[in-house]
């Protein structure tokens, strides 16, 4: 279609778990003039109605932001509130939190890999069609997801919007014997995860690199529930300094905010960033899987994020087993967190990237202000930039093929839009 002077690809409203969005691409001759990915962000509502709530409420309220990654919201919220109150939750309670988070990673990544992303690579319109031809693979994906679910249900009380998490710890903590059946499930999941890496390593990946700085947590272990924020160019800062390094700004085309560094740079958060900045923190088994899959010291091709997710599932299953093996029941299910006036910050690694929370508490313990910066908002500018360059190199494709490729490219980032695999309805306008 290169003979056309101007092409406009407009993608209509998207029905999603976390909001609504659209994709708009305008091409004139050989130039991609504009790419806009609009995502509407319900977290803005949450910031408003958290005001005036008790300091104990954010874990339950913010868990409702997302049905796919509620634990991330609970963990960032707890960390931020506890920081405001001057309390540190560590030891066995900290390890249980990490264990719960492993469940979410397994569940979310398995969903994304098998039901949302793999069909793109294997040429199927969706998971159902994929399952008809690759039944064993999809069964493996469902088993994996179920294992993540089981862990979430066990520790969280239920798989969606867990109810057992509270500021200071948990409402109930398990006895070691209760964890034995889970360990069996997780051993099977670990084997399924290894098979997933091998399976995904056989996919064909378009040649494409992004040019953004990575941003991920960094700690003595592969980053999940805690750590300092680290950038790819050497910047390192604690959660409390997040807003000194990252600003969100309104863009005219979207009700969503775009995040960038205060010094102007775009950045990318999520599996590629985590892996590239923390590869040496993977468990030996996960590292070996990464090597076998051909993932090098860093991974800058967003299409390979499916491989990195698969490696992270191996890690999460492996880490969960390690945590279960070393589990010593805590003395009490939660430590007291008496409120005090102050501000607290929390950053954890949601499956799709950094999730920042800040709470300002009054002397009465009520929330005066809340700020939530989800990974999708942080990645949005990078996604748009990647799409711009991606489209520019593929203008020879017809509109249908180009749209399909754009859908796949958006799914690389697993934006918090738990969408169907047909999520872009394309309209082409020509002039």
């Amino acid at each position, binding site marked *: 279609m290169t003979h056309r002077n101007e092409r406009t690809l407009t993608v209509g409203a998207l029905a999603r778990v976390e909001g609504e969005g659209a994709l708009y691409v305008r091409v004139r001759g050989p130039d991609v003039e504009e790419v806009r990915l609009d995502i509407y962000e319900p977290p803005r*509502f949450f910031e408003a109605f958290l005001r005036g709530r008790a300091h104990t409420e954010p874990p339950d309220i913010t868990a409702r932001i997302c049905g796919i990654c509620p634990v991330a919201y609970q963990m960032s919220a707890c960390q931020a509130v506890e920081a405001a109150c001057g309390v540190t939750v560590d030891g066995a309670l900290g390890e249980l939190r990490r264990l719960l988070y492993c469940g979410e990673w397994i569940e979310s990544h398995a969903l994304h890999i098998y039901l949302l992303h793999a069909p793109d690579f294997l040429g199927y319109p969706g998971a159902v069609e994929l399952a008809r031809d690759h039944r064993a693979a999809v069964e493996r994906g469902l088993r994996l997801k179920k294992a993540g679910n089981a862990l979430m249900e066990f520790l969280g009380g239920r798989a969606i919007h867990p109810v057992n998490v509270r500021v200071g710890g948990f409402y109930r903590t398990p006895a070691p014997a209760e964890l034995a059946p889970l360990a069996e499930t997780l051993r099977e999941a670990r084997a399924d995860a290894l098979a997933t890496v091998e399976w995904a390593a056989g996919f064909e990946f378009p040649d494409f690199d992004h040019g953004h700085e990575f941003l991920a947590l960094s700690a003595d272990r592969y980053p999940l529930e805690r750590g300092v924020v680290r950038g790819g160019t050497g910047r390192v800062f604690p959660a409390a300094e997040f807003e000194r390094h990252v600003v969100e700004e309104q863009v005219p085309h979207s009700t969503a905010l775009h995040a960038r560094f205060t010094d102007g740079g775009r950045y990318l958060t999520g599996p590629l960033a985590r892996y590239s900045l923390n590869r040496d923190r993977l468990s030996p088994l996960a590292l070996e899987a990464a090597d076998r899959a051909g993932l090098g010291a860093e991974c800058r091709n967003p299409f390979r994020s499916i491989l990195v997710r698969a490696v992270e599932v191996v890690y999460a299953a492996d880490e969960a087993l390690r945590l279960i093996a070393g589990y010593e029941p805590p003395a009490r299910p939660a430590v007291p967190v008496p409120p005090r006036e102050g501000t607290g910050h929390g950053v954890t690694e949601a499956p799709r990237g950094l999730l920042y929370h800040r709470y300002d508490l009054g002397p009465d313990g009520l929330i005066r202000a809340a700020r939530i910066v989800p990974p999708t908002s942080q990645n949005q500018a990078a996604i748009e930039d990647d799409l711009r360059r991606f489209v520019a190199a593929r203008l020879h494709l017809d509109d249908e093929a180009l749209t399909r490729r754009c859908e796949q490219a958006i799914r690389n980032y697993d934006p918090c839009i738990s969408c169907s695999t047909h999520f872009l309805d394309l309209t082409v306008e020509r002039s």
Partner: protein
Amino acid sequence: MTIVIGVGNDLRRDDGAGPAVVEALRGRVGAGLAVTDGEPARLVALWADADLAIVVDAVRADPPTPGRVRELDAETAALPTRPVTDHALGLGDAVALGRAVGQMPARLRVIAIEGDDFGFGEGLTPSVAAAVGAVADRLAGALASPGGTALPADDRTGRGDG
């Protein structure tokens, strides 16, 4: 094994009809009870081993008749493949996925309750709340005996007013 699965979000008004039916059944039936968000893999995992799975979900109709109850036979009904509210995929996708991987219950019944308000917040439209009570009573009657899986004959297929 019989399981009743309520699909929906109780913070999206009438989308909470399915979960409300399940809550109303607690302690009244010998069947398994579950609430979920409609995500196909979760649904498939919940119903895979069941002899009878009864899925209760809210639907949107145009023009709406809030509170009207439709009973669908999963074998013959055209189930939605797009969500009525915020479910990632439709129930039809879950059935198709379950079939593709051989993880379907022996029998699957779908009870659809027409909603009106799918906005943010708690609470059901009065006519939907009434339908929830009626559906729960009917299921409680049908499932009361341990292992009882019989539903009234006139509910087996097609539509009926609740």
